[in-house]
């Protein structure tokens, strides 16, 4: 499943890049993180997720697999929980537009297990919420 979006941010590309390339920054912006650990090229986190009427905890691992300063970042993620597996490949593209930066992202998400059956129904809403939370967290941290 491919999810994507873009947003114009009122900051210069370098500032945004510095923020997202730091795993600590990104990790603390993930919503409902219960436990966080640094690993090589990334971090592992225990995240509480609510999908529709279901609530569960996921053990997740994120690694920065490709880093091309200051435009391109690829993050691979794996999460296990609720008897299901989620795989994520997130690509972020930054492009400078005068004083602003266009932040575009494409996520390839695959879900298997019981969650797959309800996931498709709610995943867009959940993804939208997570992304919105991430952006607002990022913006407040960039201030």
């Amino acid at each position, binding site marked *: 499943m491919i999810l994507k979006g873009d947003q114009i941010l009122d900051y210069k590309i370098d500032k945004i890049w510095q923020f997202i390339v730091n795993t600590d920054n990104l990790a603390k912006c993930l919503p409902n993180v219960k436990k966080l650990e640094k690993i090589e090229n990334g971090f592992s986190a225990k995240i509480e997720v609510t999908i529709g009427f279901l609530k569960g905890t996921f053990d997740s691992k994120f690694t920065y697999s490709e880093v091309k300063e200051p435009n391109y970042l690829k993050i691979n993620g794996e999460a296990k929980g609720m008897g299901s597996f989620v795989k994520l490949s997130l690509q972020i593209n930054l492009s400078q537009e005068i004083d602003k930066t266009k932040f575009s992202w494409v996520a390839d998400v695959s879900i298997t297990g*019981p969650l797959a059956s309800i996931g498709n129904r709610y995943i867009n809403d959940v993804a939208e919420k997570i992304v919105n939370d991430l952006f607002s967290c990022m913006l407040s941290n960039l201030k």
Partner: protein
Amino acid sequence: MNEYKWIGKPIKIKDDYYPVTGKATYLDDIELPNTAYVAFLRSPYGHAKIKKIDYSKALQRKGVIYVLTGKELPNYLSPYPQIPKPPAGNLVDYPMAVEKVRYYGEPVVAVVAEDKYTAEDALEDIDIEYEVLKPVLDVEEAVKNEILVHEEIGTNIIWIGEWNYGDVEKALKEADLVIEDKFIFHRYTAAPLETAGAMAVYDGINDVYTIYSNNIMPMFTLPLICTALRVPPSKVRMITPPNIGGSFGTKIINYTYMTVLALLARLLKRPIKYVETRTENITNGGHSNGRTFYVKVGVKKDGEITGISVTAYDDIGAYPRYEPAGAVVWSQVLHGMYRVKNIKITFYSVLTNKPPTSPVRGYSRIQHNFMWERLMDRIAKKLGLDPVEVRLKNYIRPEEMPYEGPSGVIYDGGNYIEALKLLLKYLEYDKWRELQKEYRKQGRYIGIGISGVIDSGANNFAQVKMINKDFPVSGNSEAALIMVDPGGDIIVRVGTTDSGQSHDTTFSQVVAEILGVNPEDIKIIRGFDSWSNVWAIHSGSYASRNAVMATGALIGAARRLKEKILKIASFLLKEDESNLDINNGVIVSKVTGRSISLRDLATIAWTDVNLLPGDIEPGLVSFYIYRPDFRRNLPDENKRINNTLTYSYELHGVVIEVDKDTGMVKILKQVVIGDPGIMINPLVVEGQEIGAAMHGNEAALNFRVYFDENGAILNPNFLNYTPMTIDRMSNLELYHYITPSTSSPVGARGVGEGGGGPIAAIINAVEDALEPLGVKLIMSNVVSEELWKEVNKNDIKG
């Protein structure tokens, strides 16, 4: 037909009392002290290697007793026996995944806990590392053997069979037109109200397992369980509770649960119980066989079929749990309702990385019927004929009945032509054809579809000898025991397992008929117990068999008992036996009027035994095992066999409308004409027929199991796998055109599996509705989203 006193009467269904008043006892109602509960951690993938299982955390959870992994099973169990000879016969099947998972939902770990909630919660504590493999989900991909489901047999093809009669090549040459087509029958399930489950108890002193389950053919699955547990059948007692909440064939393959629970009961010395959740039932409780047909049919201009050649690929899922029986069962209806003589069918039974299939109402014949009935409409459209005309042209004629088909099946009567005329009358066929033209002008998509289905019943197991001639099973049998107890009550035991077919009512009528008593005086012992009830090895409720099989056994036992009753009465009344008959429970002489009540006679027979004639053994009890003669009892080298006993048929007609704005299919009118032969109780028969029609409507319009590219099922719950509800069936009209069966004891035919009728009728109707748009449907299921796209494709493009 009118000579019967009780057979044929719509007497009130007494079985309904229990479920309607909440007094029914199902498997999950049986509680034993000290029971522990199982939950299965199931595979999230269709195909993956199991690399590591870590369940240490689960064991630490309060209430968890034990964890068993599939990896350990070979230490305790043997694989299940297989029907085919090697190589397919070498397939290794355990009830849980050992080295790799082969289908979504395959049990990998079993957690045993003090209660079922703890067991289920503990599944989250288990960590399994998988190496994900590419699954093979498409049957036509699977036959290429590029991805193997079972490496140990080196192929995904379990069996290939060829049926070849007449001269198909010549027939196709002589045809005016040869039509080639492809049809796909989809996977769906039965969604019984009660899911599958089992409970096992181990008696260590006698080394005996008692297995409670809602299995519908317990004695037939027993050898599978015994092979796995490495014990003789005498060491396993099989019990089913008084009530089973529907099965529709699916509750045959739950023997895998029974095996695991029996093992755990032995290991833990406690009763062990497991009942599927709804999600587990939809996922793994048994799907119908998906089947792909490639058809080549030769026709004359007037619609007469000269010959047909078919290649069929049957998707049986990852393990042959009842298969490859389905690879031969369809041949009961090889030629459908048609008098075609030149037929060649090549049939592949194929493994895929999908859950194992099970019989589902209309098992294996429903797919084949679908192919025939879709084909008739396609022929009609190609030739510019009415679908009715093409059917009438090719139907077996009433004067040809009983009809012996090219494969040796013996159709036991029927009048397809008159039944179809009746259908057209009640459907108001001509009126709707006119209306259709009018509505089309208004931009409304109305379609009319008809379809027939052969609902064959009381199977002959010798058909599996086509797969393996040495496989030791053939024919069919059922056992009954009837006793007039010392108090004069009539107690009946039968080996069947009632899963909602109203056996009490029907069986009471049959026994009452023979014994000359009232049905309400008869008590049928509900439930099955291999140690205290009677059974034959084929006992159970499957293959629409009991209108014939149980009836045969009951008549045999009742006649034996009646003979004894009359013999004793003759002695006591000093009357010739030929003067005596039983009326309302009293043995009366037609000559002198002398009489004795059955009650008084029973007291003498059981307790005052010195009053009996010297050559009569005490007691009033009789036992009988019925075995029908199929006339062609065993297959010959050309697969000629009569592989079932009765061939009831139903004709279905529907008028539907496809809503342009939503793609929803609305049934405007639905008519069913059934020919179940002599109906023992018309209310019971009608229930079976309506239920089957409902299941067919579900299959055509609702039920379809969706898989993602990993083989995961995307709709395993009632949120998006929605059963048909009675409010959507309000347009159904049911009528009968009765011809008695020429093969069965009272002229009755088995029914309840006519669900294929509506499937082809609805698909035919939808295609008919969308004809102006040139829409061709390939599958046996339509969903609104797909239809909406078809209906609006021009607008969408714009």
